[in-house]
């Protein structure tokens, strides 16, 4: 694998990396054509002097991307993204290292980066940067409509397990498929939203009594865990 500067010909491949990553993660945003058009306009032409785009290439195929942007107060390293099949490789650390090295030419007063806690690049960033500043910025989410939330959760769980799972929030409930549900997961709307976005872990919620799984027994528990697997939170490219 090698890291090189991104070219306009890589744009479609970069978009494909984002789509593949988003399809296997909890929390990224759908990127519209308008977003990508604006992004390529922003990072191309003259603005290349202020933007560094990198791609990781393996066997001639783009498998990840990253970069850096020069702003008034300093350089921001963009969190890298890579194909799910490259999980466990050093593609992320190498993209960050290359961005750090190449962005030194800007001789910025400050170099920084932001990632959501739990991001897979966090251990590497801890190794290459001084200790992070105390938490000052956060992501927040609220449930506005429990029935709509059950519908959303039902669609997601249906893609994860073939069996029918009943989801219950307060007075409302839904089943992910037709037929008799094999397991019922009951919790508050808030907990369900946290599980859906990867902010909460089912096992921890169950132990704390904030999520109930019935019937009791290992088969139901295994099914519930498949419905809400531990997720890596990955909303870093969200806004």
């Amino acid at each position, binding site marked *: 694998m090698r890291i090189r500067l991104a070219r306009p010909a890589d744009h479609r491949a970069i978009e494909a990396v984002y789509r593949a990553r*988003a399809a296997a993660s909890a929390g990224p945003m759908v990127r519209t054509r308008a977003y990508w058009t604006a992004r390529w306009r922003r990072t191309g032409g003259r603005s290349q002097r202020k933007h560094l785009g990198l791609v990781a290439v393996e066997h001639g195929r783009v498998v990840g991307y990253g970069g850096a942007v020069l702003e008034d107060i300093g350089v921001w390293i963009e969190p890298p993204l890579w194909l799910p099949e490259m999980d466990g490789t050093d593609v992320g650390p190498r993209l960050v290292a290359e961005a750090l090295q190449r962005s030194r030419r800007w*001789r910025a007063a400050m170099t920084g980066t932001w990632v*959501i806690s739990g991001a897979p690049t966090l251990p590497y960033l801890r190794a290459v940067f001084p200790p992070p*500043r105390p*938490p000052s910025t956060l*992501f927040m989410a609220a*449930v506005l409509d429990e029935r*709509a939330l059950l519908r959303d959760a039902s669609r997601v769980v249906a893609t994860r397990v073939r069996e029918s799972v009943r989801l219950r929030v307060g007075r409302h409930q839904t089943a992910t498929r037709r037929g008799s549900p094999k397991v019922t997961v009951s919790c508050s709307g808030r907990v369900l939203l946290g599980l859906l976005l990867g902010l909460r872990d089912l096992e921890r919620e169950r132990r704390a009594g904030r999520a109930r799984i019935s019937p009791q027994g290992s088969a139901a528990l295994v099914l519930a865990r498949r419905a809400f697997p531990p997720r890596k939170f990955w909303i870093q490219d969200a806004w």
Partner: protein
Amino acid sequence: MTERGRVVIRTARARDAAGLATVYTHAFGPTTPAEVRRWRRNPDVPRETLIAVVDGVVASTVDIQYRQLLVDGVRILTGGIAGVATHWDHRGRGLATRLMAEAHRRIRAQGASNATLFTGHALPAIRIYRRLGYLETRDWVQFHEFARPVDWVQKRFEYRSKWLRRTPFGRALLEGWRHRVWMVTPAWGVAITYDGRRFRVVAGRRGRPDLVVRGGTREILSSFGDRSSYDRYRRSRKIRVSGDPAVAEVWRRLLTLEWRE
């Protein structure tokens, strides 16, 4: 504070750009009507800008961005809340809360189950968000490496010079404030003065200071724009401040950009 007038909540129109620019300037930094028009012209996602108008003046605003989250590739509509800002003269009247309630009503009407936002721990608005049910949270982790801290401090005070005199709270805060502050770390130090028009930042310990702020590079630089960090470091004595308490109080606000508790 102006007299309480009739509050009208409605969707912003093109002609509200100047009013929105004023509100954004009070809340976030220098913003021109042309910039507001440009943002509103090219949205990358569907959005609605709500405003509260008091006596014909744009007093508060909330932006709703209808975004789609992906969970294992399944699209989930979310009402992204952004640009929550209130005119300085209309703060503390519950306008942002009323706008948020209206935003939630509209988001629900679009079929979204949830609303999401990004904010700061030290921002007063976080109390509104918590009260409205924004209880699922996750922190961002910010890493910084300062190659030239003095240059960075200069840039931060250039920004303050540009912004603060354009705001009522900045003008009130800086009126008659003519002091020299030293920021001193084991590795570097700067003297910061305000001459009534702009801040000047020079390397080294120049002149006779009215206030001396001592600490480590990380502690001092992390305090820029972050009241909670600054207060925490002061309590733990990682930042030590000596000098007139009145000067120190204004300094705290200049540094952290915290205007009203």
